[in-house]
């Protein structure tokens, strides 16, 4: 009885939230799904005729390839982010509180400038006769400028750089609240450090790690502007295809179909995350 009254009160308070969600999230999403089944008009706009063409077109090798390319890049980027971000977050959490706060600030400060600006910074480093080139030449490792910019590795570096803090922060927040007595207990019982880490620390920080993986993997399939700027537009990710279909080809229904599939892929990743960790909320975000 009492519970019921409370939920009705909640509903009234939450009504604006629901309204917001319907108008700005569910509405556009439904519109996009509907659009993906419509036909494009000759040069501009859409015709209200049902078709499956847009989904059939997805199966053409060149578009399948761009899905494959997006996943491949996301896997590389995520793997590197785990390798660099996990130890960083772990050790950051073990620092004394004062140093910890300072380090947290150092990680965050660059992110108050536009990510675009920071990507242009990488151009200065990578370009012909740029900082990196000159460093290599001063060290006599190379004697002519390398072609570093507009390559696949340049894109991977840019992506890792853009997404690394997500991993650092979520691992940090997971490790930071861990009960270290458990590790001490394991060590007291004779477990070597490596074993204590694998059986105690790693499982306990898994939610943070998985959050980091999700927060890296999902956006890296969509961050097309990194591939544009550092890859010279030659690595065709699904985000690039959507943008081009929308703005240049004017094939909105096909762009919608691509977006629907991309969203399904991202949802699948989040579902996997929940299955693996058994938690329904993102670590560090609630």
């Amino acid at each position, binding site marked *: 009885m009492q519970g019921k009254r409370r939920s009705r009160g909640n509903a009234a308070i939450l009504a604006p939230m629901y309204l917001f969600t319907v108008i700005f999230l569910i509405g556009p999403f439904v519109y996009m799904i509907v659009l993906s089944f419509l036909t*494009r*008009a*000759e*040069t*501009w706009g859409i015709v209200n005729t049902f078709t499956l063409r847009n989904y059939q077109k997805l199966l*053409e090798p*060149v*578009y399948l*390839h*761009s899905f494959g*390319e997006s996943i491949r890049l996301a896997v590389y980027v995520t793997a590197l982010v785990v390798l660099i971000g996990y130890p960083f977050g772990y050790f950051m959490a073990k620092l004394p509180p004062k140093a910890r706060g300072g380090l*947290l600030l150092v990680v*965050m400060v660059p*992110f*108050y400038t*536009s*990510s*675009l600006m920071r*990507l242009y910074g990488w151009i200065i480093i990578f*370009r*012909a*006769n740029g900082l990196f080139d000159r460093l290599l030449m001063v060290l006599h490792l190379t004697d002519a*400028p390398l*072609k570093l*910019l*507009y390559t*696949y590795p340049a894109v991977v570096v840019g992506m890792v750089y*853009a997404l690394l*803090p*997500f991993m650092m*922060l*979520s691992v*940090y*927040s997971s490790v*930071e*609240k861990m009960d270290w007595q458990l590790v001490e207990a394991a060590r007291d019982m004779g477990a070597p450090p490596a074993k204590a880490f694998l059986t105690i620390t790693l499982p306990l920080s898994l939610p943070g790690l998985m959050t980091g993986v999700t927060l890296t993997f999902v*956006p890296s399939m969509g*961050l*097309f*502007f990194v591939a*544009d*700027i550092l*890859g*010279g*537009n*030659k*690595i*065709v990710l699904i985000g690039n*295809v959507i*943008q*081009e*279909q929308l*703005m*240049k*080809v*004017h*094939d909105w229904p096909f762009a919608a179909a691509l977006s629907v599939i991309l969203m399904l892929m991202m949802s699948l990743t989040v579902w996997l995350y929940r299955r693996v960790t058994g938690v329904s909320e993102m670590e*560090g*975000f*609630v």
Partner: protein
Amino acid sequence: MKKSLALLLALALCVSLLAGCGSAKTAEQPSVTQPAAEGNEAEPATEEQKAPAAAGTLNLYTWADMFDPEVLAGFEEETGIRINYVNFDYDETMLAKLEAAKGGDYDLVIADDYIIETVIAEGLAQKLDREKISNFSNINPIYQGQFYDPTDEYTVPYGSGVQTIVYDPALVDKEITGYADLWDESFADSIAITANYRVMIGMALKVLGYSYNTNNLDELQEAAELMYKLAPNIRLIKDDFVQDDLISGEVNTAVMYTSQVTIAKITKPSLAVVYPKEGIGFGIMGMFIPSQAPNADAAHAFIDYILRPEVSARSYEYLGYYCTNQAADALISDEYKEFLVLPAEFRAEDMEMIENISAEAAEKQADIWAQFKTLCGQ
């Protein structure tokens, strides 16, 4: 406490990342004269901005940085009409906004030829009143009677661009005379091209002797095979600031637009500019008045003002596109003449405009382009 701090920081991070997404496409500049129009593509939303004809406001809707601020100020001073400069980033954005406003809100729009064809077909433009444009005869006839407005009833051209090849003779051994030279093996991984697939696939079509605007799928397939062979030579595909990569030596050859050629040549005069022997494709930017323009009189006055030879000369020097005003050609300073006035030996039959093509052909081109880019990345 710590946790909420982490949350806050993570959120800030998300925002900065998203901000990057938004601004990735164009680095938009603020409006030229009007602080009121900041918000990049701000709609004329406030009371003042929507002011009717009587208030004497001209709502000018075009890309950022199309006019020398002094040219705009001169018009305001002379006529007392206030210019409300509103920007768009893509032609497509403009068309969508104009559709939403049913041809109202804006008094004068400057956009690309192909989109104007759609605008006119949708009835969103009004016929010009030539009585009010005394300088109409100054327009260079080469740029008139084109596909988007065959009888010149709706538009006045404002600048024209061609795609030319520019290379650095210090880094290239071969002399380039046409598009076909770009396929040479010596250019491996060293060419920059624009990101407009109609222009680039058009280049292959031209090498094969076909039209930019072919709807013949077999011809397009031939062009596709040719394009795929070009992939190993492509180092970079982008629309904005290609000239920087040529100047810095990141690439030794680039296919680019007139405005970029102007900047490149002025920065580095040793660069060589080639009008491809296969012929050139070009685009025209046109001024038109939307069908329900609140202040069509002001728009006519502005067109007439811009068509004055001295105003035109100044505008094109600022803009860096080919001068479409015949009467202004002689007034353009020597420093700029080479880039802004068509060469004397130019023959109208060598040029072809890029027009709208059938949906089937457009799709085919988009598929070719996606495949081509994929090959470039391998």
